[in-house]
């Protein structure tokens, strides 16, 4: 789960990391009030889960409260990479002497959180990483011992030559590590970490990703999810315990298992089609889940055909068949359904489907190519 900048900033601030004054606003007049309070020139920043906000016009400079109101009214409601902006962050415009990058990432290879810091921070950090990786200092942290003083020192000295700035950075690194661990993050970064002309060190922007697997045991983190910034179909799917990701194609897919779901999408593409979604109904599925899945998929007007690909292991294929029958009784499905079922209880499943005049197939390739063909005919 990605946090908005204002949420990440709040967690850092609570841990003691110096951040600029300012606050989040949902309306232009709130933005105006914040600008009035902080005074001077402010930056109005779209709060949205998408990179390249600046280039998309989602970050604006405002000289005073009136301009802040104006900027906020322009940004609020705009769409960046398909996502609507519902909130803006209003902060004083900072004078910047240097920009650094400080990130902490859960690394698969070392199986540890790894710090990445660079004194070449700012918006071009990905380019720095790609072209001059030697400018980035990487340091894995053993969570059994935490961030040790000499490690914080080593990282801080990679950022700053000035001793008082290095000491400030050590403190910020410790706080960032604390926030990462305390909130079950898989990523936490400050970019840029700036110094002001007076030599103060300040976290100007922050990004955080929380491990979805933490949310069940951490209701305090789960409430940070901003469903208004998500695809509504994905929100609905999550509430039905389905893993669903909307895509742009026209072949709706219902699959059990994440790997098989991806492979099914790939095979749709292989046979010349385009998948409309990723959808995993999970292992121990029941008929109601199938009903929910069909509801979500049929709500997408792009979908021209629905493809079931179920390999019954734990999943009972008769459960799936019953779900399909139940759904088609509850609401009308206007597009053709291609069904591939194999494995546990498949004979019973075939019988159930045949009893309502539906047919199923046994082979994945045959089912996928048929679905792609039907989608092509409907388009």
């Amino acid at each position, binding site marked *: 789960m990605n946090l908005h900048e204002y949420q990440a900033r709040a967690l850092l601030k609570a841990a003691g990391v110096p951040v600029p004054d300012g606050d989040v606003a949902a309306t232009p007049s709130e933005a105006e009030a914040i600008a009035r309070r902080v005074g001077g020139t402010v930056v109005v920043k779209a709060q949205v889960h998408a990179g390249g906000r600046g280039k998309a016009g989602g970050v604006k400079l405002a000289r005073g409260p009136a301009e802040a109101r104006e900027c906020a009214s322009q940004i609020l409601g705009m769409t960046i990479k398909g996502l609507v902006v519902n909130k803006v962050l209003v902060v004083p415009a900072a004078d910047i002497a240097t920009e650094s990058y400080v990130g902490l990432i*859960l690394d*698969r*290879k070392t*199986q*540890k*959180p790894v710090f990445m810091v660079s004194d070449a921070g700012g918006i071009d950090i*990905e380019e720095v990483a790609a072209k001059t990786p030697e400018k980035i200092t990487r340091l894995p942290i*053993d*969570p*059994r011992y935490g961030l040790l003083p000499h490690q914080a020192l080593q990282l801080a000295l990679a950022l700053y030559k000035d001793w008082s700035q290095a000491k400030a950075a050590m403190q910020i690194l410790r706080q960032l590590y604390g926030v990462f*661990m305390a909130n*079950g993050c*898989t990523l936490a970064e400050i970019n840029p970490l700036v110094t002001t002309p007076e030599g103060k060190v300040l976290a100007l922007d922050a990004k955080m990703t929380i*491990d*979805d*697997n*933490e949310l*069940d*045991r951490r209701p305090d983190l789960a409430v940070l999810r901003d469903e208004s910034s998500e695809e509504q179909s994905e929100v609905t799917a999550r509430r039905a315990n389905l*893993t669903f*990701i909307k*895509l742009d194609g026209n072949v709706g897919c219902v*699959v*059990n*298992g*994440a*790997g*098989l*779901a*991806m*492979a099914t*999408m*790939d*095979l*749709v*593409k*292989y046979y010349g089609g385009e*998948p409309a979604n*990723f959808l*995993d109904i999970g*292992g*121990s599925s029941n008929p109601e889940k199938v009903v929910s899945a069909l509801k979500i998929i049929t709500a997408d007007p792009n979908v021209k055909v629905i493809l079931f690909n179920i*390999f019954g*292991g*734990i*999943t009972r294929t008769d459960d799936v068949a019953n779900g399909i029958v139940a759904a088609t009784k509850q609401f009308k499905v206007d597009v053709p359904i291609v069904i591939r079922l*194999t*494995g*546990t209880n498949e004979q019973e499943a075939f019988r159930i489907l045949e009893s309502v005049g539906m047919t199923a197939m046994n082979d*994945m*390739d045959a089912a996928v190519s048929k679905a792609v063909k039907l989608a092509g005919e409907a388009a």
Partner: protein
Amino acid sequence: MSIWIGKDTRLVVQGITGRDGSFHTRQTMEAGTNVVAGVTPGKGGQLFDGKVPVFNTVAEAVQATGANCSVIYVPPAAAAGAMQEASDGGIPLVVCVTEGVPVLDMTTVMPYLAERGTRLIGPNCPGLITPGEAKVGIIPASICKPGRVGLVSRSGTLTYEVVHHLTASGFGQSTCVGIGGDPIVGTNFIDVLRAFQDDPKTEAIVMIGEIGGTAEQEAAEFVLSYLRKPVVGFVAGQTAPKGRRMGHAGAIISGSSGTADEKFAAFESAGIGIMRRPVDVVELLKARLK
């Protein structure tokens, strides 16, 4: 036995009285596996299905039954503790089926297990099966048959799909291992590939990867330098968008890294036979195994 489990496996099931644990324990026993004990704290002294003694702790189970392998079906928040308990109880092979284990938990579980010399498979994995001998986890025994192909995969049902094609075309399996779809897993491709290379019963290897991370790329390098047996491979997620978690916590393309194209390219340069579709496994193996 082929690799890691076989006729000598004495299995203890952690979470045996839970919904998933009891269901899969029955399946596992039906597959001929020697399930010697179960563990559910507070239910020590009971008999599961009138046959399998249930203990409060793994240590008690090991002492009473000589269990040498554990499978875990406890809820996600208890999974880290269960893995550590199994390791501390002296179990050398622990298979964690539980899905949804917080990844930070795994950062301390891994060194704990390493200190005790425990091999972990998973979490969030279907486990493994040596057809005809033993199964530990949830891979359906019905789709497998004994043979000479070793299979390793990050996925569950996609594995079954491939095994299904193998069995249908006459290729039996030495051992099938599902290593799991999480960012941190106890056993990676390389561990399994090495075991298959060293296993005289395995003559060819199927590797099924997916998007996210660099495990497949590292495995490809390892294949090039170490493996003397034919390998064929698939990568799921060619059509996955960037930055989205495709079900598995580990299946996410970050920036430009972890794509299926990148992984297929690594396979290609390591001489691994490329499966564009799951069904391709059959023809590729036929060409490589005379």
